[in-house]
């Protein structure tokens, strides 16, 4: 036992050696010695030894026939202070030669974990038997052939398509795969559709079933299988990297969500109402209506007021029911989609094992193979180098000890910046609140068309959204955060705060003050305001993209004399997208055509941003963790944006009295009541549904059930957290076990060498 412990200690010592200084040992040969004696005695000794004692001889002969290569190997590995013999044995172990065997022509070892019996014949008995019979280089071929037979037989057990799929996922060369397939499936000629004399109809049906299976298996979740803009995104990511790509992917996601929304509302609301227009006087169309949404548009399909509250003639289509259930249904579907994406993102991001440095991960996976232009490649290298150097310098020097004064200074700067930002947000919000309450009188001497004063509010809101983020960027630049991650999070948080407060105050205005104002059709006017906000936001974005970024580039290149073009501000642009999407979601209830407007806006935005990117911007030098950021953005889309919308809509539907003269819910106390009435009508028409409503009454409206449901939900979360915790513990134990087995391995080899001397 003593001996055992000592060996372990020396092992640890060896691992801590950086420069290969000679160390004390008990049983290992000192480092300096073997370089001279490598060629002769230990090797020959080894060969006898292992023929008798161990099982690795068969693999050793297959390792490499190049002696000099061996020597080089050994001298290099000796830096770790192991004896040459130990090292040779370790190098020829099956776990390491698994890779090498693949470079041979006869290579049938699959290292995938699906077929462990093929790749690692580590366990003693079977391999010992093998070793006793064979002792030449042919041993490798025999072993390989055995493996090939095993692989072929395992494939034969599966159907053709499954076997092909499994073969496809194996890391073998194409020529080998073709050969294996031929051998494995040669017995299955009747199911091979690479046609031999089979009658036409069987061929056709097989083709159909194959295509169907192919479709089924390649059916990814709906949004990710769309190939819209695929080539454009590929070129963009090639030049600018995955950070900018994540913005455009987010845009594409929002586009599909809006498309879904538009299609559903279109099918159930817009088309039925469009076919049966209610009689109403039409105002004249003048250009300004595209901006204000009043006039010609106010009595159109665009807004709530147009939809009738009775059954549509000729169709037996109840509009109030349709309105209520369509909106509810679309929100429900979007909720499910968002939760699904959120959980997938979180799953990808959440690491059971969190190591604080993550350098290995960075080194192995940071190279973006999509990048192909020389300049971008160079930029990427620089980026990686800077990143690595920053982290390493931190580690080598240790944290800078700051003086008290410096700490205080930093604290004051941070406080100032935060106060400035919060004050600006507050002022902006107050401004919006007051402005929305007042009626503006633009002097008629300016000769502007009617209703232009309605645009003032949206212009002010868009202006605030444009200028304040720039101010926040300035603050962040002044604060000089050390880590770029913190910088991004802080600026995202500030922008988010601004947008949440603006939308919050607007919602308050719409839901509290407007209905009380006594307007004839308050829902339509809310819809119109939302429409104006959306359009104005779009116009301002267009102007900013073309003029602002262009001017900034000219400014920075001529006046500031910077050689590099400005960087695409991903966080700010994504938050603008989320802002627009929130407005759309709130607006669906009041203006069913709003998703269509948002759709057009997103499509135009895509091409515009792409153009502007190529002209005015360049890839960022700072690292951008694409997956974490995407998770953050989907999180923001879910939590303040979508949930806030749902809360607003539920509040509207539940409590606010709809206007009496327009819309599908006129003459009702609340919109919710309209929904209830419709369900009752449906039940009367179809008595089968009575039990459904009974179930609904018993369960959903009963508070006990809700408590029970949330209790179960919390228990599930707790359970999952415990499982994750347990897994973490198991992982650390297994790692320790592997480490110990490595030590055991070395110990056994050394002991065997001693015994056989």
């Amino acid at each position, binding site marked *: 036992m003593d001996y055992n412990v000592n060996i372990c200690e020396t092992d640890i010592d060896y*691992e801590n050696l*950086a420069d290969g200084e000679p160390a004390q040992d008990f049983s290992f040969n000192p480092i300096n010695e073997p370089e001279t004696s490598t060629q002769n005695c230990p090797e020959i000794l080894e060969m006898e030894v292992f023929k008798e004692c161990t099982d690795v001889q068969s693999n050793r002969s297959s390792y490499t026939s190049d002696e000099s290569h061996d020597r080089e*190997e050994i001298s*290099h*590995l000796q*830096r*770790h202070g192991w004896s040459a013999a130990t090292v040779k044995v*370790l*190098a020829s172990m099956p776990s*390491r030669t*698994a*890779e*090498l065997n693949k470079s041979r022509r006869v290579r049938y070892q699959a*290292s*995938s974990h699906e077929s462990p019996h093929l790749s690692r014949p580590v366990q003693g008995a079977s391999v010992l038997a093998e070793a006793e019979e064979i002792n030449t280089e042919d041993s490798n071929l025999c072993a390989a052939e055995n493996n090939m037979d095993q692989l072929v037989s395992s494939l034969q057990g599966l159907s053709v398509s499954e076997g*092909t799929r499994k073969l*496809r*996922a194996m*890391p073998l*060369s*194409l020529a080998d795969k*073709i050969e294996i397939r031929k051998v494995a499936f040669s017995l299955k000629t009747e199911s091979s559709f*690479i046609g031999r004399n089979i009658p036409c109809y069987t061929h056709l049906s097989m083709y159909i079933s194959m295509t169907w299976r192919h479709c089924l298996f390649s059916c990814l979740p709906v949004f990710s299988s769309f190939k819209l803009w695929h080539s454009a995104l590929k070129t963009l990511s090639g030049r600018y990297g*995955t950070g900018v790509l994540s913005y455009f992917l987010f845009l594409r996601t929002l586009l599909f969500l809006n498309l879904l929304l538009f299609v559903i509302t279109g099918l159930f609301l817009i088309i039925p109402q469009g076919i049966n227009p209610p009689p109403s006087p039409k105002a004249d169309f003048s250009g300004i209506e595209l901006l204000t949404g009043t006039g010609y548009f106010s009595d159109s399909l665009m807004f709530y007021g147009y939809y009738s509250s009775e059954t549509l003639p000729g169709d037996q289509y109840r509009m109030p029911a349709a309105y209520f259930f369509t909106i509810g249904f679309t929100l429900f579907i979007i909720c499910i989609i968002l939760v699904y994406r959120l959980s997938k993102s979180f799953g*990808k991001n959440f*690491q059971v*094992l969190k*190591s604080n*440095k*993550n*350098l*290995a*991960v960075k*080194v*192995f*996976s*940071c190279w*973006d*193979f*999509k990048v*192909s*232009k*020389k300049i971008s*490649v*160079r930029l990427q*290298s*620089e980026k*990686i*180098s800077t990143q*690595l*150097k920053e982290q*390493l310098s931190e*580690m080598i020097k240790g944290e800078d000890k700051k003086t008290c004064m410096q700490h205080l200074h930093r604290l004051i700067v941070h406080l100032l910046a935060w106060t400035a930002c919060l004050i600006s947000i507050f002022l902006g919000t107050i401004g919006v609140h007051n402005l929305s309450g007042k009626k503006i009188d633009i002097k008629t001497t300016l000769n502007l068309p009617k209703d232009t004063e309605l645009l003032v509010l949206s212009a002010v809101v868009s202006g605030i959204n444009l200028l304040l983020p720039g101010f926040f960027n300035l603050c962040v630049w002044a604060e000089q955060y050390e880590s770029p991650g913190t910088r991004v999070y802080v600026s995202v948080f500030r922008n988010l705060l601004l947008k949440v407060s603006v939308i919050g105050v607007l919602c308050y205005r719409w839901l509290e003050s407007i209905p009380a104002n006594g307007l004839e059709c308050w829902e339509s006017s809310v819809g119109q305001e939302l429409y104006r906000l959306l359009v104005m936001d779009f116009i301002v974005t267009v102007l900013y993209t073309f003029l602002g970024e262009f001017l900034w580039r000219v400014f920075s290149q001529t006046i500031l004399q910077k050689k590099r073009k400005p960087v695409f501000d991903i966080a700010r642009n994504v938050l603008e997208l989320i802002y627009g999407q929130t407005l759309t979601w709130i607006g669906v209830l009041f203006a069913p055509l709003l998703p269509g407007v948002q759709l057009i806006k997103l499509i135009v935005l895509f091409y515009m941003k792409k153009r502007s990117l190529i002209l005015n911007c360049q890839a960022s030098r700072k690292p951008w963790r694409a*997956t974490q950021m995407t998770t953050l953005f989907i999180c923001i889309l879910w939590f303040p944006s979508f949930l806030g919308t749902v809360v607003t809509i539920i509040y509207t539907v539940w409590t606010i009295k709809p206007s009496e003269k327009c819309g599908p819910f006129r003459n009702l106390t609340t919109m919710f009541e309209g929904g209830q009435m419709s369900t009752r009508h449906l039940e009367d028409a179809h008595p089968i549904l009575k039990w459904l409503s009974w179930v609904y009454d018993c369960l959903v409206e009963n508070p006990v059930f809700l408590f029970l449901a949330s209790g179960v939900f919390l228990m599930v979360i707790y359970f999952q957290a415990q499982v994750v915790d347990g897994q973490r513990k198991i992982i650390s134990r297994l*790692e320790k076990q*592997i*480490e110990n*087995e*490595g030590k055991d391995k*070395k110990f056994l080899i050394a002991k065997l060498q001693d015994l056989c001397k």
Partner: protein
Amino acid sequence: MGTTASQLSKESLSEYQELTFLTKQEILLAHKRFTELLEKHEKEQIDARVPIGRIITLPELKSNPFKERICQVFSTSEQKDGSLTFEDFLDLLSAFSDSATLEIKSHYAFRIFDFDDDGTLDCADLEKLVNCLTGETNDAKLSSTEMKQLISNILEESDIDKDGTVNLSEFQHVISRSPDFVR
């Protein structure tokens, strides 16, 4: 089945499509690009091999610091000179395509990073890897202290059995922890 003359037979096309992660259009495009690389007399050969010198002139590979390793890894030639047949070329594209599984990608990534082809990533491999990543300019290269620190950190994080090298399973384990391993 190899490619005959300069046309792909329907059978080969469907076979390639089943056994790789590429679609039929992608295979046809690859065939076109590959035949552009062939000399006139090679075009008539079955299973023509393109030497590594011509492969790395492809625009997608030209600036890639790993281009020689990539050719070496996917080459099935006896002389290990990095030359590729059309099937090797398809293997290459399949491994880098978006639909390839994580296992395939990590397997080939490991082999690409294994500069001395010994089945594990030891210190020399890691050093060469980092130098490839950071580029060739002098100020981007890491100093020797930084390199040592980096390599010891990498080994500390990924070497589970503490033998001083990273083998395939350890590599795959590290990769599976990174959500950004997309190519």
